[in-house]
């Protein structure tokens, strides 16, 4: 079979990434499970009951990490989409595509756990305040990106259009982050601030940070696996993929 011409970024990098990611993914799963067990143990069995919210506050251990991931993953996605566009780095565009579904899932989880938390503490599932509305817009940006890159058949064009959408949409992330400062929202202020001492018990904070690390490890594992799938889908005709697939399929 014909191998495509060897170009940096188009062929060599994805194959190398494929191997590296394949080696890393199991370790990210180990980290995800270990950090989740530790985080939930501290969160449910060591962290005390909250004085004002009772046990309902324990939603924080997934709500805040999911909300952080939703914003972080969007910025990472926009960054790699932009790199892929500016430098024609195909792997970067593939990584951007691989991040979108995971980011959308974390955004949904932030909204879902937030709604469930809002009911007992605010008395309502949903309000159209700045924080909640901008987070909902983030979900639509993810879904719009996914729909756009899948709607265009020409892969290059799709990546470019996606990058444009992702980069323009990234202005929404600081709006989400600072919404609780800029507007008078029902949502409480930042849980963690770089400048002030944490306003929560240290065991609560530990549990929340462990769950955040667990979600990070999860995101790496899932995004790397999805990137590997995309690499194989796109480079199916490349020599190394043929060898790889052949090796896998041998009885």
């Amino acid at each position, binding site marked *: *079979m014909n191998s495509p011409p060897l170009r940096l970024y188009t062929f060599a990098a994805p194959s190398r990434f494929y191997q590296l990611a394949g080696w890393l993914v199991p370790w990210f799963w180990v980290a995800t499970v270990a950090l989740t067990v530790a985080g939930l143990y501290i969160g*449910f*069995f*060591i*962290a*005390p*009951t909250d004085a004002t919210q*009772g*046990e*309902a506050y*324990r*939603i924080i251990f*997934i*709500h805040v990490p*999911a909300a952080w991931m939703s914003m972080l993953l969007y910025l990472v996605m926009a960054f790699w989409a932009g790199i892929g566009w500016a430098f024609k780095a195909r792997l970067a565009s593939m990584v951007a595509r691989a991040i979108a*579904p*995971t980011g959308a*899932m974390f955004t*949904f*989880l932030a909204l*879902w*756990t937030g709604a*469930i*938390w809002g*009911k*007992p503490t605010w008395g309502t599932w949903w309000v159209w305040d700045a924080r909640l509305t901008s987070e909902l817009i983030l979900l639509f940006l993810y879904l719009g990106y996914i729909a756009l890159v899948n709607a265009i058949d020409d892969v290059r064009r799709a990546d470019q259009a996606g990058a444009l959408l992702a980069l323009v949409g990234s202005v929404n992330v600081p709006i989400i982050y600072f919404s609780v400062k800029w507007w008078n929202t029902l949502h409480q202020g930042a849980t963690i601030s770089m400048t002030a001492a944490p306003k929560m018990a240290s065991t609560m904070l530990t549990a929340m940070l462990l769950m955040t690390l667990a979600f990070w490890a*999860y995101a790496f*594992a*899932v995004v790397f*696996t*999805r990137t*590997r*799938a*995309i690499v*194989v*889908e796109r480079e*199916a*005709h490349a020599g190394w*993929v*043929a*060898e*790889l*697939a*052949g090796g*896998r*399929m*041998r009885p």
Partner: protein
Amino acid sequence: MNWGSASAFFEMGGYGLYVWGSYVVTALLMTLEPWLVHRRQRRSLRDAARLNPGNEAES
């Protein structure tokens, strides 16, 4: 230890439905997504094998 009994743990001080409603959906999605992704990864290799006959890779 915060909980005197298993039922106290599940009741969550009266917020059981809210707390577990959050955690169960999170657990479901964070199990479903890896499963779908691994399926896609396997399928991509299968399709690549089919695209490249002559590699004794017929499925």
